């Protein structure tokens, strides 16, 4: 039993799931004789081996996309796309365990035991590293953005009253400011003061006039 990977989305295909599509393109791949040495009698002969493309799909969605001749590297939800565009972790030591080894290992009880113990550990580590990779993608630029805005708008941030609303003694500050403003106005020459007063008057008069207009209409 072997857990395969879906050709399209790269998810694992468990036994009993999915479809295997065999395409017979006879690509002759010569296999080196010394590689076959362990289980081939005639070592000197170079044997040619056909490599058909066997496509495995985890579900009909992937199969249908394949039939539509879509390239998985361009389809956003596949692992191929994600790895290609740096959304997911590509190079890590934890992937070494899952690499396909064409040479079968001789059974050794200790090794088998250790491998079985290691598998959940390694998957956990890989999961954590993957999560970190993904959060870093968001967190690092976000930090940068926050720092930049703080720097850029620091003057504005300090000036707006909203930030000082809960500051104690704010009322007194306002009163002091108002007093200072009035004193400054009194310091001005008389012509300017009269203008300021007329402006104030004008502002007061306008509302009743509009009301009268409305009544007339």
């Amino acid at each position, binding site marked *: 039993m072997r857990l395969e990977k879906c050709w399209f989305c790269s998810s694992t295909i468990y036994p*009993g799931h999915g*479809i295997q*599509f065999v395409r017979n393109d*006879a690509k002759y791949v010569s296999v080196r004789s010394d590689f076959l040495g362990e289980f081939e009698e005639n070592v000197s002969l170079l044997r040619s081996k*056909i490599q058909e493309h066997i496509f495995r799909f985890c579900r009909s969605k992937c199969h249908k996309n394949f039939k*539509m*001749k879509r390239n998985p590297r361009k389809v956003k939800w596949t692992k191929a796309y994600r790895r290609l565009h740096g959304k997911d972790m590509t190079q890590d030591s934890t992937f070494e365990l899952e690499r396909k080894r064409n040479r079968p290992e001789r059974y050794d009880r200790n090794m088998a035991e250790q491998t079985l113990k290691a598998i959940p550990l390694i998957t956990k580590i890989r999961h954590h590293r993957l999560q970190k990779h993904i959060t870093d993608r968001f967190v690092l630029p976000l930090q940068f953005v926050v720092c930049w805005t703080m720097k850029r708008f620091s003057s504005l941030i300090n000036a707006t009253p909203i930030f000082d609303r809960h500051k104690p003694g704010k009322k007194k500050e306002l009163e002091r400011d108002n007093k200072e403003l009035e004193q400054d106005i009194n310091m001005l020459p008389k012509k300017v003061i009269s203008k300021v007063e007329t402006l104030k008057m004008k502002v007061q008069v306008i509302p009743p006039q509009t009301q009268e207009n409305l009544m007339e209409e």
Partner: protein
Amino acid sequence: MGSHGNNLFGAVSSSVEAVTRPFHCDAISQQIRTFIQMRTNLKVVDNSGAKRVMCIQAKSGKYGAKLGDTIVGSVKEAQPRGKVKKGDVVYGVVVRAAMKKGRSDGSEVQFDDNAIVLVNNKGELIGTRVFGPVPHELRKKKHLKILALAEHIV
């Protein structure tokens, strides 16, 4: 029947049905594959001399032959110097079928084309070589010679 005969030469395989084509897809890639029945053209993948065989009868199966079944066929196209001539009635074992075949572990296999290997009425191979991939469903059907000669077992 006349026009049907014209269509059949060489290319079209009647084991393939055309379905309502989705607007965004290629028509060929979305066909539902069905059984190998009368009038189905199959490719011959051994060196018996025949190139194409048209199925006359599926020996087993109500609807038609599937992967691993035997059929009776008429040779439509043959190489000039071979064990089999054009017009011969031959038996064949289906080694590749475009229709999905379920396996005992729950998975399904399908091939790219329909292909047979010519056999005599006792089940012995006429040719001496087999080309292309071959499924291990043949083991259950006791076609061990084909498996032995096969280049790749799927």
